[in-house]
Each structure stands twice: as C-alpha cells, then as structure tokens.
C-alpha cells in the first residue's frame, strides 16, 4: 500500500513539475520545476526497485539521475546568468541571441 502511495506521489510531482516548467516564463522558475519533475522520476525508480532483488542497482540508477539533475540545474543557471548578463533578460519569451 505504501509503495502505491509513493508511486502516486512521484506521478504528481512529475506532473506538477512538467506543467509548471511549461507555463512559467522565468528561466530560474523553469529550472526549479524541472528539478521537481526529476525528483518524481527518481522517486519512481527507487520505489519500483525497492522490493526487488536488484534494489542496489535501482539505487545506483537513481544516484545517476541525481547527478544528471544537478548537472541540468548547473547548466541551466549558467545559461540564465549568461542571458541576463548579455541583455538583462530574465524571461524566456524575449528573443535573444546567446552569442556575444
């Protein structure tokens, strides 16, 4: 029963994160919501491998996803900072070239 609750939680987290990432215009808000969606995926991986004989490998895969999550966040923050330093832009809707 608890595993089903965790799977529902992971799907809700992914849905909230994905929907908010598509709706929000601010770059940093979009990155934060992508982190939320990623965390839902990581939780689903851990839950699905929790009671199997390969639980250790499921946790290793989840650790890989955590590293990728941090990487996506770092690159996204760098891109947001670059856009802001180029033309003071914080929103995704405004057209701007990354080249200087």
């Amino acid at each position, binding site marked *: 029963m608890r595993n089903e*609750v965790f799977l529902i*939680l992971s799907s809700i987290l992914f849905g909230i994160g994905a929907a908010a990432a598509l709706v929000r215009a601010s770059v940093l808000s979009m*990155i934060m919501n992508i982190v939320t969606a990623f*965390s839902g995926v990581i939780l689903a991986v851990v839950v699905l491998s929790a009671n199997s004989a390969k*639980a250790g490998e499921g946790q290793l895969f989840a650790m890989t996803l955590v590293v990728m999550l941090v990487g996506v966040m770092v690159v996204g*923050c760098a891109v947001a900072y670059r856009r802001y330093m180029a033309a003071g832009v914080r929103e995704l809707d405004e057209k701007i070239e990354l080249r200087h």
Partner: protein
Amino acid sequence: MTAVGFFSFFSSVICLLCAVYVAVGRNLFRVAIALFCELCALASVFICLNAEYLASITFGAAVLVAVAFVAFGSFIKGNLHSPLPTTPKDGASILRSVIGAAVGIGLGGLIGAIFLTRGIGTSLDTTANSAIEVSALGDALFLEHRVLFVFIGLFALILIIGSGLLLRRPDDAE
C-alpha cells in the same frame, strides 16, 4: 498506522506542499527554500524505502540546489548584500516563521532519531526482502557497473567545463 507509516505519510505531504509552492511561488528565495524542503522530504521518503545512502546524497543535492538558486538569484537581481526581501515584521509573518522553524526542526529531529535508533544501513521495515548495505552498493558500483561510474565522472567534468565556458565574459574569449 505504524511510526514508519506515519513518517512516510508526513514526508509525502510536506514534499507535495513544497512542490506546489515551487510551482506557484513568486518570491525566488522562498521558492528556493521550498525546493530545499521538498528535496529533504524526498530524502525522508528514501529512508522509508531502505535507501539511506541515496537519502544522504539527495540531502547533499538539496543543499547544493538551494545555495545555487539563492546565489544566482542574488546575482541576477544584482543585490548580493541583502538577498532576502526586507518586509516589516507583523504577527502573521512571525507566526509563519515559527511554524516553519518548528516543522523543519521536527523533521530534522525525526530523521536524526531514526538514524540514532536504527543506524545507517539497517532496514526500517522488517518485512522488506533485503536490507541494502553500503558495502553492497560499493561492490555493485565499482565491480559490476564500472562503466556507469566512469560515465558519471565524465559527465560531471563536461558540465563543469561547459558551465565555465558559458559564464565567461565576451572580452575573456579573445
């Protein structure tokens, strides 16, 4: 409901509430704090799933994420000296601060109590099929999945180099 069941339900509710605030919040710094709380609650859920090592990694990632967003938010706003917005203190804001601090301390105390009474690496749920030990994770990582470990390291290195290239100024490129 057992203590572990209550703890897992409480952590799930906190995670969900913080995720909703991250999605709809307007203040960047409060949203960063909410994201930190969400990842800490997720780490608590991992403890309930006998993934204590992954929970510690998630907690470290939560600290990194919160610091990164607060720092970048300060850089973009151009106000490093006072990253938090200055608002007059009233009864409602003080009550919110007290409740937030109590929830945070309570959650941290619960996690600490579990680690102290159960120990890292032991199973919380006695009906679980197996208890994952750190040594078994180390064996799986370094003996069976060496390629994955090397790939993670290379991926992190490429991210660091790419972020440095993105952050350099135009006159530095010449």
